[in-house]
């Protein structure tokens, strides 16, 4: 049996796989016509295949599906929301951060509803209006919350008005003038000022 040339045996397998080329098939057939061993080899191969193919299907045990379903891990993928949260820990952290930040900021906004202003010498107060009198010069920044400011004299510094109006006739202000009305502007102001504070704190430490 070992007398069959290797390439012929190779052609037999190509033939059995159904992907033999026409030339190989002709060569195989021509060779097999004269070679008893090759005929027997081929015969044995085909009966081997028939033998394996005659295997009966072994039935799956009953209750197989139920058993698999019982063994499935229960907690995984229980609800869509849970699995989504679990898959996106960064979003969860960011959302929590935003919630806590805004809560502290808005509570700060509520507490700041009272009229207040930066204490400076030579400032006049009429009701909820801060006045820089004519001929006077205020050195330093002025912050007025929940009130207006009228500048008749001069200010050497910034003026910030929160929830109020800045009014001036013959004013002389060397610094910036900010009017903050809306909640979001107020938020922005708060963030800016806390950043400034942090910066000055760092500078001081140096």
């Amino acid at each position: 049996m070992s007398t069959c040339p290797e390439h012929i045996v190779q052609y037999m397998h190509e033939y059995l796989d159904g992907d033999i080329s026409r030339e190989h098939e002709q060569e195989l057939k021509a060779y097999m016509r004269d070679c008893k061993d090759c005929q027997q080899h081929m015969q044995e191969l085909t009966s081997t295949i028939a033998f394996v193919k005659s295997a009966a299907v072994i039935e799956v045990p009953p209750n197989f599906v139920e058993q698999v379903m019982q063994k499935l891990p229960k907690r995984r993928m229980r609800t869509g929301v849970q699995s989504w949260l679990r898959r996106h820990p960064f979003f969860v952290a960011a959302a929590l951060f935003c919630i806590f930040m805004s809560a502290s900021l808005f509570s700060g906004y509520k507490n700041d509803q009272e009229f207040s202003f930066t204490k400076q010498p030579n400032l006049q107060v009429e009701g909820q209006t801060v006045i820089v009198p004519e001929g006077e010069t205020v050195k330093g920044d002025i912050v007025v919350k929940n009130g207006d400011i009228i500048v008749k004299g001069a200010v050497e510094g910034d003026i910030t008005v929160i929830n109020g109006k800045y009014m001036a006739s013959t004013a002389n202000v060397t610094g910036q003038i900010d009017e903050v009305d809306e909640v979001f502007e107020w938020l922005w102001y708060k963030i800016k000022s806390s950043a400034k504070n942090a910066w000055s704190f760092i500078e001081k430490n140096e």
Partner: protein
Amino acid sequence: MDALVNKRIKQVLKGDQQAYSDIVSLYQQQVYHVCYRMLNNRHEAEDIAQEAFIRAYTNLHTFDLKRKFSTWLFRIATNLCIDRIRKKKPDYYLDAEIAGTDGLDMYSQIASTNRLPDEEVERMELQERIQYEISCLPEKYRVVIILKYMEELPLQEISDILNMPLGTVKTRIHRGREALRKQLGNL
């Protein structure tokens, strides 16, 4: 059928665990059969087939819906079978001495010796013989012969399942056939 399977997979991914039972009942027979032919033991086959479905479930989010689910499932199952065979090998002789462990084999022997009509017995013998010859093959030939001639899968699909080139699959089938031919010729 693939569309239905994909629909069920999406349902499972959305959290509907019950939808998975349709997938299991659709493929249980094929997966169990491959495992049984690979492992030559019904209890082990059941164990591994169940494990394959559980693994597929827990890793379902990694399955690419554009691919064929059965191919992916068969890959999990055949890998588990090969792992099991390799783990078993070194323990083989030790196990043989323990009475409890070959109880399973004894049990199946007893079950098959119930007297049946001659015809039936002949058929039984052929089936036993087939399983015996298959189990004598080295596992790398065994798996391709099972997928090709018992599951009747196309060569390309076998190559996808085993994650090896088509040429390698063909070579292994050729060698598997030759090995079987020699085994059968000796008897």
